[in-house]
C-alpha cells in the first residue's frame, strides 16, 4: 500500500514531480521511456520550457502525438527536427558533451551512485540476468548531470553492488572523474521516500528531503547502509494541483506509469 495514499497523490506522482523540478533550466536532455519520459514532459511544461528531448534512438525535437511506448516509437520520429545514426548520437552528441542531463536507474545502487543493471548474483551463472549497460555506461560518464529515479528497498540500495555497470562517484576526490570526463556523475536521486544529493567532497549520497508523511526510520529501513543525512534535512514539496493535472490529464491519462 502506498505511504502517500492518504495525501491525494501516488508514490510515482511525487517522484515525477520532484524529479521534474530537478530539471529546472536544463536544455539538452537524454530521455528514456516510462517515468523519465513523463518527468521530462512535465518539466517542459513547468520549470524547463527550453528542454530539448534527445532520445537514445537518435531522435531530436520529437513532438509525439501519443505517449511513446518505447524510446524507438515511430511517433517520436514523425514531426521531429532530426534523426541521426546511433554512431553519431553517441559520438557527436553524448561523447562530445552536448547532453546536459540524463536519467539512470538500476536494480542496485550504492552510496556513491554506482549502478548495477547487469546481474544479480555471480556474473558467470547469475541468479537474475538483467538487461546490461545499453547506453548507461556512456551516459554515466558523459552526461553533464545524472538524475536517478528508483524506488528504494534494502535489496536495491546496497552496501556492495554485485556488478558495477555504470560509474557513479569513486569516493576518492583525488581520483574521481579525473580523466577528462564531461559528466559530474549522479547529482540527485529521487525515490518513493525522499530526495538525495551527493556530497561534494566524498561523493556520498546524502538525504536532502523526506516526502510528506515519510519518517527517517522508514528511509533507514529501506536501504543497505546508514545514509548520510543533510544537517538541514527538509521536506519534499508535495506535487502541486497544476503538476497533478498535467500528469493525470495530459501526460499519462491511462495512469500507465503513475498509478
Amino acid at each position, binding site marked *: 500500500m502506498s505511504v502517500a495514499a492518504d495525501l491525494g497523490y501516488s508514490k510515482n506522482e511525487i517522484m515525477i514531480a520532484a524529479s521534474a523540478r530537478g530539471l529546472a533550466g536544463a536544455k539538452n536532455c537524454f530521455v528514456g*521511456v*516510462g517515468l523519465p519520459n513523463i518527468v521530462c514532459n512535465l518539466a517542459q511544461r513547468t520549470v524547463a520550457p527550453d528542454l530539448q528531448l534527445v532520445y*537514445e*534512438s*537518435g*531522435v531530436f525535437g520529437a513532438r509525439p502525438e501519443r505517449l511513446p*511506448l*518505447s*524510446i*524507438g*516509437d*515511430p511517433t517520436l*520520429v*514523425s*514531426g521531429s527536427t532530426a*534523426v*541521426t*545514426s*546511433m*554512431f553519431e548520437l*553517441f*559520438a557527436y552528441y*553524448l*561523447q562530445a558533451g552536448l547532453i546536459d542531463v540524463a536519467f539512470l536507474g538500476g536494480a542496485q545502487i550504492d552510496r556513491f551512485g*554506482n549502478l548495477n543493471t*547487469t546481474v544479480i548474483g555471480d*556474473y558467470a*551463472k*547469475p*541468479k*537474475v*540476468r*538483467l*538487461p*546490461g*549497460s*545499453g*547506453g*548507461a*555506461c*556512456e551516459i554515466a*560518464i*558523459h552526461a553533464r548531470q545524472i538524475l536517478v529515479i528508483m524506488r528504494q528497498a534494502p535489496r536495491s540500495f546496497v552496501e556492495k553492488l554485485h*556488478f*558495477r*555497470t*555504470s*560509474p557513479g562517484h*569513486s569516493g576518492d576526490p583525488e581520483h574521481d572523474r579525473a*580523466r*577528462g*570526463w564531461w559528466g559530474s556523475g549522479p547529482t540527485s536521486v529521487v525515490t518513493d521516500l525522499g530526495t538525495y544529493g551527493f556530497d561534494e567532497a566524498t561523493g556520498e549520497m546524502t538525504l536532502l528531503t523526506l516526502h510528506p508523511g515519510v519518517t527517517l526510520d522508514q528511509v533507514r529501513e529501506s536501504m543497505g547502509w546508514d545514509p548520510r543525512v543533510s544537517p538541514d534535512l527538509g521536506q519534499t514539496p508535495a506535487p502541486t494541483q497544476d503538476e497533478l493535472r498535467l500528469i493525470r490529464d495530459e501526460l499519462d491519462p491511462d495512469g500507465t506509469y503513475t498509478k
Partner: protein
Amino acid sequence: MGSKVTTMREAVAELVRDGDTVAIEGFTHLICFAAGHEIIRQRRRDLTLARMTPDVIYDQMIGAGVARKLIFSWLGNPGVGSLHAVRRRIEDHDPEPLEIEEYSHFGMVCRYVAGASNLPFFPIRSYYESDIPNVNPNIRTMVSPYEDATEVAVVPPLRPDVTVVACQRATQDGDAQIWGLLGCQKEAAFAAERVIVVCEEVVEGSVVRRDPNRTIIPGVVVDAVVEQPFSCHPSFAQGYYDRDNAFYLKWDQIAREPETFEAWLKEWVYDLETHADYLEKMGADHWESLKPEPAMSGEVDYGRYA
C-alpha cells in the same frame, strides 16, 4: 548486373551457414523477424548472434536453439521486461548454456564501425570504472600518443558473416533506402561478409535515383534482396506499419514457460512454410489495423544539370 531478388528461403539457405556470426540489426525499428523465423525454420545451429539490443526475435531464435553465443549491449523486451528464453539459458543453462560477450551500446556501434572501416580497433571514451571490461577481455585500453596522453578504451572490429537489414524500399540491385530510425544498419551491413536486404517493396531504380541521399546501403555490398511486406512484425517500418505492442506484451507470457514457448514456435514458425503464411494466419484485419495515416515528407529539388 543481374537482379539480386530472391526468396527468404533461398537467401537464408544460400547465405546463412551453421556456425556463422549473424547480425539482424535495427534499433526498435526495422527488426527483421521474418529472417529470424526462416533461420529457425531451416534449423541453423551454432550461430553466434550479434545485435545491440537482443529482443523478442533473439529470444525466439536462442530459445529455438540456433545459437551458441550472443554478442550484445542490451538484453530485454523493450518497454515490457525480460527475455525469458534467453534468461533460462544464461541463468539455468536450460536447455544448454549460452556464451555471452557484452558491451555498452556505443561499444557495439563502434565494433561495427571498425568492421565496416577495416580498422583493427576503435577508440571510445567509455568503460572507465565499470566492471564490464573485467568480464570482457576484448575491451582494452590505449593511451593517446599526443601530449594529452588521454587513456581511452578500445573495442575490436565486429565482422558478421551475414548481416540482415530490413528497409522500406530497395532496387533489385540492392540499393536500399531507409527513413526514420537508422540504428546501426549501415555500419552492420558494411561490416559484414554477406548482406541480405529485406524490403517492404522492390522499386524501380528510377525511384531511388530521384533521391540518392536517401540511400543508406548501396547495392555494391548486398548479396540478396528479399521483398517481404511486414517482415518486421511485431517491430515496425516507419510509414508502413506500427509496432504491434500487444504482441510484445503477449510474448512476455508466451516465453515464460518452455511449453508455451515451444507451442508458439510450432504454430507460428515450424508449421508455416513462409512469412506469407504467417501474414495470412494473422489475418488481413490485423495488418490493416497497424497501418498509420500518411505523413508525407515533401519533395526537394536536385536540379537537372544537362
